Structures are given as C-alpha cells and as structure tokens.
C-alpha cells in the first residue's frame, strides 16, 4: 500500500506523490513536452486548447473594454463628448456583441471547461480531442471575421439586430457581421457536444453522478443550453440574411412579414444564452467557496438540480424581453409567471452558498475575494431582474438604464467576477506558478469598488427614465453619468491589473506545487502543471467532491483495507455508470 500523506481534508482520489525538487525540474508536463508554434496550433490536448482560448478570449475582452471606454467617455456630457451619433451607435454595438459572443459565452467553457472537465472526472482528454481543436479554429475564424467587420464599417444595430432597422434601414455590415456570429455559433455547439459526451462516457471508476464536482454539473447544464439554443439563433440569422440579400419580407411588414417574429426567434436563443453565460460562473463559485471555507457545499443535490432547473426553465421565459413589443396579453402573462419561476433556483443557490460559509474556516485570497464579490453583486443583479420580469413594473423600466444596470450586475458582477475567481483559483494548476497575493487582492477590491460606483447610479438613471443606447441625454442626468464613468475608469484599472501580475508570475512567481489551496478535487491531486495525459494511472474515486470536513478519510479507508492505489483497477464496462467500487459517501 502506498503511504497516504497526512491530510486535513479528504481528496476524491489518492494524490499522486510530489517529486523531489531535482526530478521536478526535469518533469515532463503538458507545457514542456513539446515546443514550437505548431505544437500549440495543432495540439489536441484539451489543456493547451484551454490556454489558446485564454489568450484569445482575453484579447477580445480588451477590445470590448475599449469599446465601452469610448461609450462611457462620450456620456460625460449630455450632448456627447467625443463621438458622433453614428460612431456612438457603433461603439455600443461593438461593446455588446464582442463581450457577449466573443467573451462571456465562450470564456469559461472554453478555458476552464476545456482545461478542467476531463481532469475533474478523471479522464485523459475530452471525448473528441480533434473536434475540440476544430472548435477553437471555428471560433477564431468567426470571431476574427466579426471583429474585422466591426472595424471596417461597424455595426450599429445594437447586439439585438432588430428588423426592420437591421434589414432595411441600417447602412452597416449587418450581413457580414451576422455571418461572423453564425460561424462562432458552431464552435458553441461543438464544445457542448464534446462536454456532454465527455461527462457521460468518460468518468473514472467511482465517479458517479452524485460525486461529480458541481462545476461539472454546471458545465453539463450549460452545454445542454448551448446545444438546444444556438441552432435557433443560427436559423434566425439565416432568415435575416435572406431578407437582406433578396429584399424579401420575412420580418418586414411592408412585405407581409412580422418584425415580432424575429424578436421571438432571437430571444428564444438569447435568453438561454444569458444562462450559458452565468451557469459556468456559478459552477466556479461552487469550487472556490468550498475550498476557501474548507467546508462541504451546503445542499449538493439542491445546487446540482437547480443548475439543471435553470437550464430547462430558462428556455421558457424568452418573452419577458418582449412585454411591450406587442406579443399578446396571454403570452405576456405566461412569460411573467415562468420568469418568477426561473428566479427561484438562483435564489436557492445563493442561500446554499451563504450557508456553506456557516461554521467554515474562511480565508480571503484573491479567488475568495472575487467569490464574495460575486455573491453580493449577483444577488443584487438577480433581485433587480424581478422588477423586469413582472408585467406591471417592466412598463416603466423597459429599455432604460435600469435594464443595463441589472444585466451588468449579473454578467459583470456575477459572471466576470466568477471568471476572475476561477482564473485566479486554477492559475497555479495551469501554470505551476503562484501570482502575487497582494496585487491580486488589490485588483479584486479595485474592480469591485469601481463596479459598484459604475452601476448603482445607473439604477437611479433608469428609474428616472433615461433610455438605453442614447448618445445624448436630458441634462438632469449628467451628474449620475459622470459618476458612472468615473466608476468605469476605476473598474477598468481593476481588470487591467491581472494583465500585469499574472504574466509576471510566469517569470517571477514561486512554484505552486500540486495543491497550493489544499483542495479536494481530482485536478489538485496531480502535480502542477499537470502531466500530458492528466493522470499516470486511472483514478478511482471514493468520496464526494467537497470532503473538507472529513480529514484523513483515505487513511481510514486504508486502515480498513479498502484502498488499493498501486494497481490498475478493473474498469467496468465503458459507457455505463461505473459501479460503486468502494462504498463511499
């Protein structure tokens, strides 16, 4: 029997032993086993593909941030400080489309999903490694084409592309921009197929559905939504393109069409799309909050099923974007009730996370600071959504800055904070280096404070009626706009800081070791950076994912003669749920 190290938590599998320093320096892992640009561009290793996504998603995040800098600077004065009307319209459209399609939707599934899903379930790679690489190329092709279209002519329809404006009246590259988005949609679908197949078919022995880390549950739910929703936006773009190219009237009332049909089809994808964005973030929070409070997640089943519940009910609420569009009285009623229903699982999650902190042992490194920021800001974002989901209160707030504040609280205060939490949590695993504790905590504080200063004034602006997408506004709104822009500048600094200390850690940071955070997941039981095929022997899982409170469980099992960590276990029939190898929790 292998000697199990002294632990004050119980990992899901027997940890791989750390090598002594002189062997560690020569160890081959996924970063150094091959060199050269083509070993990266033609890799099928899910970890390298995750890093490819990391670099490209970060670049697109900067583009989106540049666009919003233009927007917010322009809003300093009521008559527009730096941009013409057309330029402003292109700037806010660029901000919206880039942030949504080229950052929020792909970032966690592409980076953390690709990197971690196989490791967390004990597999050697994703189900379809070559498809994984194709997915990245398709995404890059669509994204680069799209950004090129934004630069050579711009797009000024807003990310929502409503006809008849987008089909008949806009003078910008709607067609080609739509083509770019269409292409990136394929990447979404391929990634989703890969993740679902991997989770179903490639779990290691002992990894039953109820022992999966909640990040995996979240990625599974996200992939379900991507699978079902993305094709509908694809066909919607095709119909819009047909209308533009051939001058026919699918959505144009002058030619017998109906513009509301576009809105239905568009929002049928775009509402679940926001759940594609937030669910992976929630998945990350599960991992960080358990690790940094050293406690089991409160209510595993509730959190797991609420992810699936959000995914399912999220497909039934798209009409709450169209309460005032003329969709019909009974439809409005139905969508409003269902929206109230979809709010419940998110509330359950927030309460469960808060309860996880109870009687824990909490430390506040950067991942945890971002996690706490998430909890506060996502709660505010979620509850302000209630105003918008109810028929009566949406009338006044629709298409005002209230909506903008709401979705930025959930997307930025929620998802972006969760992404940063995840990036900082798994950075040592991905790179083997630890970043500066001081600078990372400072960046978190700056970002969160800046965020609050940016968006709380926008709730007030929205309630007072300031509409969205306005380059000029009524003079009485100026002070709040200036406040918001000031906050945005601070926020921007907070997001730029990781661009410095994270790469710096690659050269100046101390070596992180296999498990710097003392976490329980499978990915933490291998050295950092992980080996080429993740695990030297197939892991066998004995416990659920968050056994922080049950120290030395492995030792107890060992004493009972129930762990055989030297042998290759007899792997049960592939494709089926692996039978319980050990009676665990």
């Amino acid at each position: 029997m292998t000697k199990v190290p002294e632990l004050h938590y119980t990992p899901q599998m027997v940890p791989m032993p750390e090598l002594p320093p002189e062997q560690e320096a020569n160890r081959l892992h996924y970063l150094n086993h091959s060199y050269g640009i083509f070993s990266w561009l033609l890799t099928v290793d899910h970890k390298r593909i995750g890093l490819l996504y990391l670099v490209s998603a970060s670049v697109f995040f900067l583009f989106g941030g540049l666009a919003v800098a233009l927007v917010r600077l322009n809003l300093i004065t009521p008559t527009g400080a730096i941009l013409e009307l057309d330029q402003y319209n292109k700037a806010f459209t660029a901000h919206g489309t880039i942030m949504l399609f080229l950052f929020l939707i792909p970032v966690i599934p592409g980076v953390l999903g690709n990197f971690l899903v196989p490791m967390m379930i004990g597999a050697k790679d994703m189900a379809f490694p070559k498809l994984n690489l194709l997915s990245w190329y398709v995404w890059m092709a669509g994204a680069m084409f799209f950004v090129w279209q934004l630069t050579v002519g711009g797009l000024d329809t807003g990310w929502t592309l409503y006809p008849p404006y987008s089909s008949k009246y806009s003078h910008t590259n709607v067609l080609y921009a739509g083509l770019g988005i269409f292409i990136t949609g394929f990447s979404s679908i391929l990634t989703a197929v890969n993740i679902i197949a991997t989770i179903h078919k490639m779990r290691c022995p002992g990894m039953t559905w109820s022992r999966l880390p909640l990040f995996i549950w979240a990625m599974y739910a996200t992939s379900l939504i991507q699978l079902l929703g993305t094709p509908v936006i694809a066909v919607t773009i095709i119909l819009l393109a047909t209308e533009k190219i051939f001058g026919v009237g699918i959505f144009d009332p002058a030619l017998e069409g109906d513009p509301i049909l576009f809105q239905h089809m568009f929002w049928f994808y775009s509402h679940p799309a926001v759940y594609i964005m937030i669910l992976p973030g929630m998945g990350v929070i599960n991992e960080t909050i358990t690790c940094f409070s050293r406690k089991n997640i409160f209510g595993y089943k509730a959190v797991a099923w609420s992810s699936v519940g959000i995914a399912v009910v999220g497909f039934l609420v798209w009409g709450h974007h169209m309460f005032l569009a003329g969709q019909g009285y009974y439809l409005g009623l139905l969508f409003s009730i269902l929206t109230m229903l979809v709010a419940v699982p998110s509330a359950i999650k927030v309460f469960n996370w808060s309860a996880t902190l109870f009687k824990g042992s909490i430390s506040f490194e950067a991942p945890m600071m971002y996690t706490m920021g998430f909890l506060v800001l996502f709660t505010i974002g979620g509850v302000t959504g209630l105003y918008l989901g109810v028929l009566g209160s949406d009338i006044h707030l629709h298409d005002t800055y209230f909506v903008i504040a709401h979705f930025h609280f959930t997307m930025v205060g929620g998802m972006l904070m969760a992404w940063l939490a995840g990036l900082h949590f798994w950075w040592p695993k991905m790179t083997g280096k630890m970043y500066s504790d001081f600078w990372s905590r400072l960046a978190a504080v700056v970002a969160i404070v800046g965020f609050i200063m940016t968006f709380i004034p926008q709730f007030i602006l929205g309630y007072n009626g300031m509409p969205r997408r306005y380059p000029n506004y009524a003079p009485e709104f100026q002070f709040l706009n200036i406040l918001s822009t000031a906050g945005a500048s601070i926020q921007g600094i907070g997001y730029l800081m990781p661009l410095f200390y994270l790469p710096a850690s690659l050269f100046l940071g101390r070596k992180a070791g296999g498990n710097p955070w003392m976490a329980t997941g499978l990915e933490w039981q291998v050295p950092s950076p992980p080996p080429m095929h993740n695990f030297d022997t197939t892991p066998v899982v004995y416990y659920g994912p968050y056994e922080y409170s049950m120290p030395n469980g492995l030792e107890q099992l060992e004493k009972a003669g129930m762990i055989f960590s030297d042998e290759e276990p007899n792997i049960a029939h592939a494709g089926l749920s692996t039978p319980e190898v050990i009676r665990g929790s």
Partner: protein
Amino acid sequence: MFAAIEIPTVPPQASEFAATYDLFFWYITAVILAGAGVVFAMLIAFSYLYARRTPTDRTPRILGSTKLEMLWTGIPFVFFMSFFVFGFKIYNDQLDIPDDAPEYFVAGKQWMWKMQHPDGQREINELHLPVCDQRDASGKLTDPGIKMSGTSEDVIHDFGIPAFRHKFDVVPGRTITVGYKPTLIGTYHIFCDQYCGQGHSQMVGKIHVLSKADYAAWKEGTFRLPGKNPVDGSPAWEGRKLFLKLQCNSCHNNEASARAPQLSGMYGTNRPLEDGKLQKFDDEYIKRSIRNPIAQVAAGWKSIMPAYPVDKVDEIELRNLTAYIKSLKNTDKLPDRTELAPAPVGAPVQPSPGAAAPKP
C-alpha cells in the same frame, strides 16, 4: 465645480398609473432589500465570525438541511408570486381604457414623433393633454382619460413618458392602443425607448399637461405657450392662413404706415369707437367687425375696411378668424404685409399709400 449637482431621485407622478406604479415599485424594493439584506448580513457575519484562525482548522461536516431548503425555496417563491399578482393587477388596470375616452394618434418615424388630436390638431414632438381631475365622492378618478393609438412608419420605436411610468413599442404594420390619465399639470419628457438608428436619442419631446380650460383654449389655438404659434390644425391656425389668404395683412400689419389698427393684445380690452363709446374687444365685436365693419369703426381710423358677408367668409371661417385674432398676445406680431408676396431682392421698401395714422 458644478453649479448645482442635480441628482434626480423620483420622476414626477404625473398620471394615475404613476402613483400605483410607484407603490408597487417600492414594495418590490422593500422586499428585495430585506431578502438581499439577509444574504448580505449572513455574508458579513460569517466572514467575520468564521475567518480562518489556523491553517488546520476543523470544520463540521454539514451536508445540508431539507427543511432549510424548503424554507428558502418556499418563501422567495411566495414573494415572487406576490410580485406577479400585484404586477399583473396594475398591468391589467392600465389596460382598461374606457370606451368614451377621446382618441389620439401618434406615429413614430425616424426621428420624430407626430401626434394628432381628436379634433385635428397636429403636433410634432410635443403633446398637449388635458388633466384628469374629476373625482367622485370617494376620491376615485372618474375622468375617462385619453386613448392613444400608435404606430410606426418605418422601424420599431417606443413612445415612453417616464412621468406617466408608461411606454409602449410602436411597430410598423400594427397599431397599439393604450390609455393615459394625466393627473398633474406640468411639462414632462417624451423619450424614444427602442433603438431606431442614428437619431434615436434625438427623438425626444415634451408632453404638456394643461388644465381643462387651458387645454380647450389651446385646442382652439388661443392658448399658447410663449413663443409658439397656434397649433397645427387648430381653428386659430386655420384663421391665420385665412388672414393671409384674404390679405387682411395688407392693412392690419406691423408697419408704421399701416392703414388699419394693430390687433395684437387687443382681445379683452376696451377700445374707444368713433362715437366715443368704449367697446369691449370680444368675440361678438370681432365677428361684427368682419361682417359689417362700418357699423363700428375704431377711433382715429378711416372707415375703409370692406365687408365680408357669409358668401365670402362662411361661419366656420369666421370662427377661425376670430380664434386667430383672439390668440394674438401683446408679444405676437401680425404677419408682415409682404408675407405671401415678398418684394424682389434689393427693392426698396415702399410705405403703402394712404394715411400715416397714429397707432391707438
């Protein structure tokens, strides 16, 4: 640094719906502040109480509690349903438009709002409405309010009035009807609330809620906000057109050599007639002066005005002319003598033949 730092807090409650809306809004706010407050209190308390003390702290193995799960599923659900019910009720109430409400019409187009009143007055980017102030014994509003039907001529716009807490999308190819019951006299914003292109932020306007009397006068064209013309389509507007068509301005104009008295600011005053009596400058006097001018000539002026019997100026036209003259304030100028027939460029301005009569 700033002359006055203006922080708008709550827009004026200018309609009946606005009052109920705000009640609902603050109810939701109270509930969510309480709920979020519970969460924040937990986060703060736990962060302080359970901060890590040693690297090897032991924590209890708490897996969950079905009772708590049901509690914090059930309680939010009940509150969310209360939001839905309350919201649905006020949504329904504002959809309830009485049949006898007068019908107004708004058309949005890139990038302006065109409004039309039931009696034909037309406005662009402005809307004048009468206030609803009839209440019954219990204080409930009995005014039917107004009915507004809207459509778009090109892309989707949205007619939004924050002071009424109301907006609705105007969609090309469809007409949507809503109802307003303005309850507070004042001027408020109209915003376009659906992105419609370059001029989306220029597509703003003003809604003026007037007292019922002022509104009636405005409709006629005699009530005007300073510096404005009588509204398109009103009797006074028609009267002005007729004033020019009949060339009344060839004598009744602003020049020193005018052959006829000034009319601005005359309405309601007492003017001396030829025979020394004082005549009140009212509607009847105006009409008589048009029909049969030699019967009462203003003091100091020659009796040279031609008569306009009913075959030259019919009753409706007479009413319109009267409305126009009535609408002329002290600060308004009569149309120039050459408004319809300007002199050639460079021609000297000739005084008209006839007496240089002193202005009254």
